[in-house]
């Protein structure tokens, strides 16, 4: 078991170095002049030379890569954004929580609805409800995220305006609503940029979590309302995929002999489906949930653009168009690394779920 986990971790090291290299190279070869993108069209050559020197861009590319590696691995420093003049790590701590909340809510929606639909349609296999669910799942994987987002805006902000189902079309909180970070509300004195400050800063940017901690339920409900539509939009494709996998996996398990034995023993039908059936059908579902995280992050770029949320995806997209290398590097790296770590965790969780994998190595 330990050996399996160590092997798996060792395999990710070359991938991580590869990611660093790819993000670094990609950010350097993006055409355009970062100096004029950051300082404006009127910056003259002298100012730009100073800008390049200050940001280390006058050195050869291999030297830049070595400096970059040292910065990240030894100093844990992701650099400063050209445009905002702020440390990238600070921008990440500020914007990552938006995407994390969106992704979590979307995943919760996708898992709960996907697994339930899958169970329903496997249990009543070939019935009208099964056909309906699978048609729905097929449409769900085929509809583009941006189309779905706009459709939701149209339905919930325009057609259902002035009904109780009305939902806001964009933004994170309604205008005028502010909620102080919980550590300020609780009068904690934290030194800026210390690790505990950074953790608290990150947590306080999870708007809904912060609202719970500060007992500000008005903000909580408002934040929730703003997040429902984007979360459903991002979660629809994973939901449809999870429903299909749950259905086929459960169908296979429910056809096995031990299920017939369980029924013959007179075990309650609920227990047969959920304890004997579902717990053995979940392995492929877990894999798919893990794999869908990439789709979720891709979806987040589009959804955050449509719903005007200042999250990881939209910031990254804007940074690419503005040629802010340092943000592009930092953000793609954080996204790719978290993606690799999640896949690693999925792989390790198999070993716990499936004894066959645990014992094979």
């Amino acid at each position: 078991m330990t050996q399996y986990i160590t092997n798996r971790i060792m395999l990710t090291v070359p991938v991580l170095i590869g990611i660093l290299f790819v993000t670094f190279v990609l950010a350097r070869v993006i055409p355009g002049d970062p100096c004029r993108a950051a300082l404006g069209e009127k910056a003259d050559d002298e100012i730009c030379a100073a800008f390049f020197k200050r940001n280390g861009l006058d050195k050869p590319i291999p030297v830049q890569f070595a400096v970059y590696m040292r910065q990240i691995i030894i100093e844990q420093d992701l650099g400063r954004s050209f445009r905002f003049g702020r440390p990238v790590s600070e921008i990440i701590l500020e914007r990552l929580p938006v995407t994390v909340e969106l992704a979590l809510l979307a995943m919760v929606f996708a898992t709960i609805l996907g697994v339930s639909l899958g169970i329903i349609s496997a249990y009543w296999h070939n019935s009208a409800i099964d056909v309906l669910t699978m048609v729905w799942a097929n449409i769900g994987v085929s509809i583009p995220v941006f189309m779905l987002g706009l459709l939701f805006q149209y339905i919930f902000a325009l057609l259902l305006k002035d009904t109780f189902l009305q939902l806001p079309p964009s933004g994170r909180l309604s205008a005028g609503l502010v909620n102080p970070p919980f550590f300020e509300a609780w009068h904690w004195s934290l030194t800026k940029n210390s690790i505990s400050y950074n953790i608290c800063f990150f947590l306080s940017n999870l708007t809904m979590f912060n609202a719970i901690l500060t007992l500000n339920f008005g903000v909580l409900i408002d934040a929730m309302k703003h997040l429902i539509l984007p979360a459903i939009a991002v979660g629809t494709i994973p939901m449809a995929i999870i429903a299909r996998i749950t259905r086929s996996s459960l169908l296979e398990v429910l056809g096995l002999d031990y299920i017939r034995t369980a029924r013959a023993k007179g075990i309650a039908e609920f227990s047969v489906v959920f304890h004997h059936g579902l717990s053995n059908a979940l392995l492929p579902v877990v894999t798919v949930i893990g794999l869908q995280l990439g789709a979720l992050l891709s979806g987040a770029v589009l959804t955050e653009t449509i719903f005007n949320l200042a999250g990881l995806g939209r910031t990254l997209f804007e940074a690419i168009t503005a040629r802010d290398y340092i943000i592009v590097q930092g953000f793609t790296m954080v996204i790719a690394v978290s993606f690799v770590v999640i896949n690693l965790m999925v792989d390790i969780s198999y070993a716990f779920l499936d004894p066959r994998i645990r014992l094979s190595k």
Partner: protein
Amino acid sequence: MTSAKIISQSKEPSSLYQDAVRHLFQKNSAVVGMIMLLALILIAVFADVIAPYNPTDQLIGVEDGIVKRSAPCIHWLGCPANKPQHFFGVDANFRDFFSRMVYGSRLSLLAGIASVTLAIIIGTLLGSIAGYVGGWLDNLVMRLMDVLLAFPALILAIAIVTVLGPGLINALLAIAIVTIPAYARVIRSSVLSVKEQEFVTAGHALGVSPMRILFRHVLPNSITPLIVQATLGIGTAIIEVAALSFLGLGAQPPTPEWGSMLSAERNQVFTAPFLVFIPGFAITIVVLGFNLLGDGLRDALDPRLNRR
């Protein structure tokens, strides 16, 4: 009686592909998918005949009293006969939206098929050589594929398009590059299992060159999973090319591409929703067609699932 039995038994045995086609036509969803795609292909081929206007012609000055973003006007649905007919309305630049949609079908189909074809060629080459040669080459190629897979597809594609410069061709290339690992993996795993079979060993023993064994004996026997992957992949590729266009990185105006048409009018979703939702539904339908066909093919080509 006995002679009749003998006759029925002497029927020609059907091949895997004949069986597959038969199963495909028995599956309703696959037939629906095929009909949808057939209709689309016909629209794309006969776009010149079907579209009443040129997709990039601005009708201001050509047509009296044309209003930009005016709603669809169809005569037999009650639109007054003295008004010119526009099935899907008029867009912000006074162009006939129906004609643009019709021509757009060409680009969407081409975008999906071209990017998947490119990805298959490169992916098959990389995957089959990695699987067949093995050793350090296999390790190198597959770790490279792991690095590509470590990025969420759209984010990597955005980065690549930014490097290459926005445009439909570059968007196609980016989507192709991003999807290479999927095909490389599929081909590699099936090459790995085929190369252990006896007919390959026999080839070696007869002194057939390794390249010939790989391309003439191993690959043709590893292609089935690729067909399924490719059909499902075209749908995804169409969505992703449209997404890049939506972000302004794919097709540039005035090209009638569905993703960029949707993007151009997305701020008008509350005032002229048809300009946003018609292209959106069209993308959904093409993708749905490929997904239904792909699912059907997967079931039909999987010998374990052949329930006769």
